């Protein structure tokens, strides 16, 4: 077992961790991207009308984030923690089941 820490400490993301607490040689030991919630960049929020959805999964293919969560039965859900509101899903949806609405 290494004497160096193998997990990225939480404080590293607040700029408080020193080099002693960070894994050796700047190794990233776990995916750290999801810790930054980018969903607050959004100006317009996509809302899915599940009644209209035909489960074609085009939004799931096109979402650049990807913030479209595909479920067991191929129905989809939006991850608002990371959706930046680009509107591509609403644009590609063939049945217009996704609507971009204002925040708040």
């Amino acid at each position, binding site marked *: 077992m290494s004497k160096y820490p193998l997990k990225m400490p939480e404080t590293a993301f607040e700029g408080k961790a020193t080099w002693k607490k960070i894994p050796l040689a700047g190794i990233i030991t776990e995916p750290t991207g999801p810790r930054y919630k*980018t969903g*607050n*960049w959004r*100006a317009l929020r996509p809302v899915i009308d599940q009644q209209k959805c035909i489960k074609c999964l085009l939004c799931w293919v096109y979402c650049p984030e990807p913030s479209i969560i595909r479920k067991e039965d191929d129905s989809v859900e939006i991850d608002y923690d990371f959706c930046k509101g680009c509107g591509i899903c609403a644009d590609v949806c063939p049945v217009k089941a996704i609507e971009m609405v*204002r925040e*708040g």
Partner: protein
Amino acid sequence: MSLIEVRWHGRGGQGVVTASDLLAKAAILEGKYAWHAPMFGPERSGAPVVAFTRVSDEVIEIHSGVYNPDVIVVIDPTQVIEVDWYLEGVKDGGTVVVNAKDLPDKLIKEVQKKHLKLFYVDAYTIALDTFNRAFYNTPMLGALVKATGLVSLESVLKVIEIRFSGNIADKNKIAIRRAYKEVKKYE
């Protein structure tokens, strides 16, 4: 009027640099000296972007970024809660113009501590009503003009006509006028 320094905070894609540029051009139209530059580095869509403008009656010989601004404009409504980030280095008695419906308590506390003048306008609604997209820059420029009187509304509208054309110019003018009217001072 001596040197006035403005710092703009927003996100890439909202027109932070354009707003700074328009303000500088409006000042030049009025026969003043102006200087403008964005902060280089994070200019991709969605990243926090900073731009600087200087306006003066005399020749401006300082070309660095603005560290102690007289005026701070927060274009992005989601950044209004990050008070420490955008109030850094503000001069005592300076002006802050934010894009917000409600003001966070922390901002009000800081404003009272540093004797700042605080103005707020709901540019989110104005931008989505007029452009149907998140262009908060020209509404916030209108709010800044009302809050500080740095340049006149007429010269800003004239610059809009030079920079944009047709439908886009008209929409920007509507947005600027509406923000100019709707901006409120916090007392």
